[in-house]
């Protein structure tokens, strides 16, 4: 029998769909589609094209992910060739979603995360977009890199702030200054997930490379992972396991051997600050503004997508940028007052503290093993509650970051948030109950740390009060200018537990 496969063959290696499966809360979705948007950069024409797909195939709902992708659910396999064809014409590909396989195989380079204010942020050290473009072009659909032991995550930060969560990527380029030179240092082996050896912050390599050398470093690093990553055990297959067992020194030696040249040492600072790009900020281009629209949880309807695209056409330059905190930037805005007014009318007010821009939730309703309320609902609920309970000044001073994950896989990066919530189900009598483990004090930026498990099994119904009490005590007991994260790291776990037991504010 001869089988016509040309129409399928053209999409292999560049397009796939992933598995949705929540045995507890059945959504009716069997598959998600994760559209890679390199660096989150896209035009309004592309965004409208995706909105159209969302309307036709995704029940009118899209999700901006923490890797600057756009994710859709309820995708039917029989619709995929039409979807892939449209995506191809729009210039997009997808994650390859090979992790459904049982072994350590079919991993790919995931959407490369890049500073969402590249080229427009004031006092930028380096624009990461040339590196983003060259790496995306090299890895996308490249058969040599479609059978890595597991997925491989790359980030590029050019602005001096940790806006890409560099510490939980496999390979993170961070722009730095060395004397008169500007280039990248890089970190390796980070990951928030529980796969062995557990959550790890990426380790600094202590190396400086010129901008045009970074491409070769990235390709050589992925080749090292491909050749030496563990293929015996899926649990040990992420790059962090190789870095943990080798150590950074051995990796750097292997990298130099592969590159064929000696790497320059770097012992300067990595990040200048932690957060960046919240709210409305003046750009490096005189008279232009960068308007960051906080989505809180990252969900958008088709109509909202179309309305945001219209705003970007009318008041901006027809460009949009997805952020690694599940929000969306309208760059190059000239008449910002009009944009803010229209956004407020659409349900996206931009006033208040920076909390709205610094919170995330994973899509646990589709892939977790937990029941409602799910991560995205929890993050919206907690943010709204804190904003109604505390002043903007307090929340701003706290510099609070809240991440919520539905399960231990921690797709919501709870381990690097000031307040990280990781959901699970526990048995109580004959019933299963939805609870969250609470981690405190995690952060990226100049002084990175993983959050500490402070309380286990907090019922969902008690989460808001638990956090409110802790924040109330922070308000009463903090040192001058002390952020919430610093406050948490100053206190022992048993002290923090006590501080969740009520406070006046």
């Amino acid at each position, binding site marked *: 029998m001869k089988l016509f496969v040309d129409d399928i063959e053209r999409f292999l290696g560049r397009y796939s769909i992933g598995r949705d499966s929540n045995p507890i809360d059945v959504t009716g979705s069997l598959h998600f589609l994760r559209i890679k948007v390199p660096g989150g950069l896209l035009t309004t024409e592309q965004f409208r094209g995706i909105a159209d797909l969302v309307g036709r195939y995704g029940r009118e709902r899209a999700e901006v992910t923490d890797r600057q992708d756009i994710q859709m659910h309820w995708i039917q*396999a029989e619709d995929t060739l039409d979807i892939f064809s449209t995506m191809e014409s729009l210039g997009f590909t997808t994650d390859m979603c090979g992790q459904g396989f049982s072994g350590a195989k079919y991993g790919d380079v995931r959407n490369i995360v890049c500073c969402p204010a590249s080229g427009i942020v004031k006092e930028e050290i380096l624009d990461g977009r040339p590196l983003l473009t060259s790496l995306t072009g090299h890895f996308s659909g490249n058969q040599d890199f479609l059978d890595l032991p597991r997925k491989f995550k790359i980030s590029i930060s050019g602005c001096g702030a940790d806006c890409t969560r560099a510490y939980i990527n496999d390979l993170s380029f961070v722009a730095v200054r060395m004397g008169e030179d500007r280039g990248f240092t890089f970190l390796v082996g980070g990951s928030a997930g529980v796969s062995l050896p557990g959550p790890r912050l990426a380790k600094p390599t202590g190396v400086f490379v010129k901008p045009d050398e970074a491409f070769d470093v990235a390709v050589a690093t992925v080749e090292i992972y491909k050749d030496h990553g563990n293929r015996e055990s899926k649990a040990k297959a992420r790059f962090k396991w190789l870095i943990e067992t080798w150590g950074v020194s051995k990796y750097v030696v292997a990298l130099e051997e592969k590159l064929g040249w000696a790497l320059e040492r770097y012992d300067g600072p990595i990040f200048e600050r932690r957060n960046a790009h919240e709210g409305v900020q003046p750009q490096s281009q005189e008279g232009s503004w960068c308007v960051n629209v906080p989505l809180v949880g990252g969900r958008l309807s088709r109509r909202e997508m179309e309305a945001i695209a219209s705003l970007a056409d009318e008041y901006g330059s027809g460009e949009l940028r997805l952020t690694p905190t599940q929000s969306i930037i309208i760059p190059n805005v000239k008449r910002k007052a009009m944009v803010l007014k229209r956004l407020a009318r659409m349900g996206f007010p931009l006033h208040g503290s920076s909390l709205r821009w610094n919170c995330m939730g994973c899509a646990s309703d589709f892939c977790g093993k937990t029941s409602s309320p799910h991560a995205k609902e929890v993050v919206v609920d907690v943010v709204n509650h804190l904003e109604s309970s505390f002043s903007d000044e307090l929340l701003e001073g706290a510099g609070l970051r809240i991440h919520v994950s539905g399960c231990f896989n921690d797709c919501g990066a709870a381990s690097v948030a000031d307040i990280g919530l990781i959901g699970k189900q526990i048995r109580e009598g004959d019933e299963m109950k939805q609870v969250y483990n609470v981690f405190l004090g995690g952060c990226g930026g100049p002084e990175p740390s993983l959050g500490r498990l402070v309380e286990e099994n907090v019922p969902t119904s008690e989460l808001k009060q638990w956090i409110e009490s802790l924040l109330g005590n922070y308000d009463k007991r903090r040192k001058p200018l002390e952020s919430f994260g610093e406050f948490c790291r100053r206190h022992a776990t048993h002290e923090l537990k006590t501080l969740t037991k009520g406070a006046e504010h």
Partner: protein
Amino acid sequence: MKIAQEQRPHIRKINEHCYEIDVRGLVCPYPQLLVMRVLANLSSDDILEVLVDNPPSARDIPKAVGDSGHRVLDTSRSDASAWRIVIQTERQ
């Protein structure tokens, strides 16, 4: 991009009314699309045996086959990392 030779869906005629397709190594949605395409080319009561190692596809193929009116006669592990799904075609 072309399917690598070892990845090409291998269709084998076992006997007059029995075929086998090997879709191991392919991610979703391709195993399901290929299986449905083969079924559309078979005669009523023909047998198609599917070898698949992608767990989501092993879940989805029996459902899609059933929804299309064909019969899944058996689903079993062929080894530690793969499944064999036996389907009988049915023409309305």
